[in-house]
């Protein structure tokens, strides 16, 4: 066995004047966005020359309240931001000026928008809110968005949504303690699966690279790993979908609410963060055993990387080249964003 990995601080990025809620990496550049209670988004970029991370853009004056979530489109051309002001804004980078400009403001949610995510193809955008609904928007032309569906089956606020990495399948995490999986059938979106094993609010979910597994974290202080089982052979004429089943649960690695989970598409490691001020890196220990069970264990820890502050988000860099896949950005209640390298 090799020695356990460690996380080394690469950059400490200050500028936000309130807690940082989330970070989102650019799909093709060493660049990421962070969003904050200070109603702004900051874009941070690696200067290839001297290896430093610098704030290259501040997107403010658009949202009236906290920006809770942000996401780059898969082609990196657009950035979507979700705010407590009940709107989602899609920004586009002007090729001439290099400035990010408001391309569209998506209204419709009754109150706080909590999460925004682009589908893998970039043609669909999903948002979710305290109003218990999930909205699926279609990108029409190059600047219009049309509402395709409003999904209202969650009983409470929907905290977070995440698209499947390869298919048009959406996972949602809710204050109602459940995770739901959504699929499309002839323009109707429907809930194909409801995962009810967490004992409290599910704060976040993320898929693995293949999309056949899902990780979820909760106010119940547990991390759960779910794996798909192929659909049972059915006599019914209608199409059946694979379903997700819980194959592993980690309960001891965080001592308070777990707020975020990120499953690296590069190194297959899972990063979790929470109200106990910790970052934990979790790795699968071996292939599934005969009974389909998996073993997961913590392989690296940062005990107080943001001091006494909650860590709201950690995201792995999706770039494989130049070892960027080992980069992890964390966002805390201290208003600071930190970049770490797993070595």
């Amino acid at each position, binding site marked *: 066995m090799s020695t356990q990995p460690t996380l080394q601080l690469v950059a400490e990025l200050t500028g936000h004047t309130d807690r940082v809620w989330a970070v989102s990496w650019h799909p093709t550049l060493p660049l990421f966005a962070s969003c904050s209670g200070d109603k702004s988004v900051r874009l941070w970029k690696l200067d290839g020359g001297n290896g430093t991370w610098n704030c290259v853009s501040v997107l403010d004056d658009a949202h009236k309240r906290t920006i809770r979530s942000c996401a780059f489109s898969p082609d990196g051309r657009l950035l979507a931001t979700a705010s407590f002001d009940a709107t989602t804004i899609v920004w586009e980078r002007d090729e001439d000026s290099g400035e990010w400009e408001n391309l*569209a403001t998506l209204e419709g949610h009754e109150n706080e928008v909590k999460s925004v995510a682009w589908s893998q193809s970039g043609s669909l955008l999903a948002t979710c809110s305290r109003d*218990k609904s999930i909205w699926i928007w279609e990108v029409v032309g190059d*600047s*219009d968005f049309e*509402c395709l*569906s409003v999904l209202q089956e969650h009983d409470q606020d929907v905290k977070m949504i995440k698209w499947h990495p390869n298919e048009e399948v959406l996972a949602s995490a809710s204050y109602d303690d459940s995770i739901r999986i959504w699929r499309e059938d002839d323009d109707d979106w429907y809930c194909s699966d409801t995962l009810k094993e967490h004992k409290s609010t599910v704060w976040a979910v993320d898929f693995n690279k293949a999309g056949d597994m899902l990780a979820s974290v909760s106010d119940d202080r547990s991390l759960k790993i779910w794996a798909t089982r192929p659909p049972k052979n059915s006599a*019914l004429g*209608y199409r*059946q*979908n694979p379903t997700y089943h819980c194959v592993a649960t980690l309960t001891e690695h965080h001592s308070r609410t777990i707020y975020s989970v990120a499953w690296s598409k590069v190194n297959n490691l899972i990063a979790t963060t929470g109200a106990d001020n910790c970052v934990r890196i979790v790795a699968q220990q071996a292939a599934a055993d005969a009974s389909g069970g998996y073993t997961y264990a913590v392989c690296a820890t940062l005990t107080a990387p943001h001091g006494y502050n909650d860590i709201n988000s950690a995201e792995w860099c999706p770039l494989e080249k130049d070892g960027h896949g080992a980069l992890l950005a964390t966002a805390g209640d201290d208003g600071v964003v930190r970049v770490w390298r797993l070595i």
Partner: protein
Amino acid sequence: MTFSGAVLLTDLNDFITPSQACIKPVQIERTSQGADSQIRLDDTGGYYEVSQDGGETKLETASISLNDCLACSGCITSAESVLVTLQSQKELYEVLKANQLAVQQGRTQDVRVVVVSVSPQSRASIAAKYDLSPLDVWKRLLWFYKTFLGAHHVFDTAFSRDFALIESAKEFVRRYREHHHAQTQPDSATTTGQETAARPVLPMLASACPGWICYAEKTHGYILPHIDSTKSPQQIMGSLVKNYLGAKLGVPANRVYHVAVMPCYDKKLEASRKDFYDDVYSTRDVDCVITTGEVEKMFSEQSLCINDMQALDVEMTFTKAFASPEENHGIPILAGSEGSSSGGYLSYILRYAAHVLFGVSLTPQDVENGTNGVHIRPGRNSDFVEYALCLPADPETPVLRFALAYGFRNIQNLVRKINPAPAAGAVARRRRQHRRANAAAAAATTTSAYDYVEIMACPSGCINGGGQLKPQTNDSGGGGTAAGAAPTTLLAASRDWIAKAEGAYRSVAVDGGIQPPEANQAVTALYTEWLEGEESEKARKMLHTEYHAVEKMDVNGLAVNW
């Protein structure tokens, strides 16, 4: 944000407990002033005021009426308990029982005239579920309400809908002319500039769906001037029954008890609107709305099945029917309506406007099949369809653009386009300008410039209303129960079910033929006899209404729901 109909369609997990989620401030009537008494709560949830001498007075429990819900922006959904306790089949039973008692005791002056007005969508839903024709259902409903339960009259809201169609079409033409007049005369537009800005006239949006109206009033005040001022068929029947029939029978409005049978729970909310309340007689135009599902419940409460029920002959009074075809031994049969199963507003208004504004005569089939200059373009989903009318002189440029938009998602996309403060930023504006210069792309971007939109809150429209019958769950088949079936199976089954009800609705027109509203001679006669002419003040009062933006209530910090 949602519609109550949508909530009621599924299970009621959105049920609101008045004490917690409802933010309506509740006034407690205290018997004594000052802080010298306490409140006690007993095991059953009753409240007692305990004064210092130990005396207890039971306090009233806070209750929330339909009107409170209507006037409040606290939540968009309304609790089913509120709806059901105030308007249900139980209330109808009570009125019928009181009538029976009054007759037994010789108090004929206390007998209320009971009128039941049934929607054609309810008829179709029952027909689909029990494999009957809508005509058979109608005849059996006549027997059930009149002979079995003792109601005095059963009417058909497809009849009052002809008033709604005629009034809507005339209002559309009026708006269209005003709109184009203002556009072609820039000078007059400047002088009345403010008025024009305050009252946009096009697109005109349908007004028959109470879920949509309620939603628009609570969240999109700016859109209200776009909504057709014409009352819904239910409320026009209300005027007809309380104002015309009451006078005809020499009975004051409060001695007529009017029940509407509707495909939709939100119709209960509509009936409760202040606009439809008569202060003089303290009565509503529609006293009680029961859904199709509640009618089915009535059958089973009376241990009846519609398949085994007796039937009465169709009558002509306030019923959309053809009089006495030869082969039917002089007994009237139901007359069909054109267009969608949500009332056919788009179809009739398009035909009327084409004729009045452009001198083009269209048949209902032209609109349905897209012939004679009508172009039909399916939208992004099956609940969105665009209709355009082009004149022979210029078959490329539409002179009228209409659309059907059903369901929440399509309403959203529509209101986004009508929003006076477009939310797009600099980039999008530049894009659009760029695209306008580009002739080929121009056609794609101007699709939002509709003249009329038939909006309904429910996907598939009224035939799929929240109060309609649910498909028979077949438990005897072994396996295959609804609960255990895959979601895709349920989706497909639900589509089949809606298609069946839709088929039943349309079968009336197929079997008996379409009767356009202007061919409904009874309606024409009523314009003269009841309404004192077509454009009279009385016609305006009886057939039109107003909408009111509901102010946001979250200015009260104590009542903020966070």
